[in-house]
């Protein structure tokens, strides 16, 4: 088997295992990454919401926020893990498509 094929299989395994990145922080009661708090967390941490932050925080509304479907937040770890894997598959597919398109365009223009 070509080594690239093995690497794709490795990526598939990582995709299936990706919910560990969701479930383990939950299990060990670890919160958001430093500097990536939501507005209510900021309010708790510093006692107010910085005005510019409040204004800019909602500037973009992502279709699958935090790798979970909208309204799934209360569905529990099982369903959220499924959404996480789906997000990984969709994200990898779009990333690979875009980067290989760029790669092909750059390579071709040279020839």
């Amino acid at each position, binding site marked *: 088997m070509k080594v690239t094929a093995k690497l794709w299989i490795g990526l598939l395994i990582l995709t299936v295992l990706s919910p560990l990145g969701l479930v383990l922080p939950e299990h060990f009661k*670890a919160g958001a990454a430093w500097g990536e708090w939501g507005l209510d967390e900021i309010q708790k941490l510093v006692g107010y919401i910085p005005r510019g932050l409040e204004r800019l925080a909602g500037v973009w509304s992502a279709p699958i926020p935090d790798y979970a479907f909208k309204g799934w937040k209360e569905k529990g770890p099982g369903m959220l893990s499924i959404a996480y894997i789906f997000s990984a598959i969709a994200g990898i597919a779009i990333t690979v498509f875009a980067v290989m398109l760029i790669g092909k365009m750059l390579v071709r223009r040279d020839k």
Partner: protein
Amino acid sequence: MHIPDGYLGPATSGVLYAVMIPIWITASNIVKKTLKAQQVPLLGIAAAFCFVIMMFNVPIPGGTTGHAVGGTLAAILIGPWAACIAITVALVVQALLFGDGGITAIGANSFNMAFILPFVGFYLYKAVSGNSPSGSSRRAIAAGIAGYIALNSAALLTALQFGIQPGLHHAANGQALYCPYGLAVAIPTMLGEHLLFFGWVEAAVTALVVRYLQKQDASLLKPGGAR
């Protein structure tokens, strides 16, 4: 390490977009000259790897989370300029589709994770590897050291960008307008957690995959071979 919207003032996010534009153009020009058609799949694999490894949030029990980026590994595999493009694409998809990192902070996040990280990682890997043969364990160790320092370099720059905000932008009553923590909090916290925890994850991932590639096809790791 994905700076969300609202944590950086317009000055910082604007400057870092402005800094990234010539870097992205240079990366395209260099990749155009150096990338071979058969390396395009490797570009895709590197981008996919960076995307998915960043989803593995590692918890500090009772504290925060962080993750590896895989940027040094990408740079070793396809060169730092191609890695810059691959990681940038992953970051853009994360921001647009999943709200992981702000769209106003794509310049900043790309500067830290798609520029500083792969370049520090790549040149450190080359320096520590020296002339050792492509299958040598010294190369795997070099990859781990490079990954550790590169991730911490990116964390330090992220902390700097967070930390200068209260000084740059504050209201008359002293309240911060964007990130509320200054350098004295941002640097020790972000750098500390990456030095103690997440840097080791990046080091292990980088070294282990390089070791695996050495056993599978060491030509991928030849100095100047795959780029």
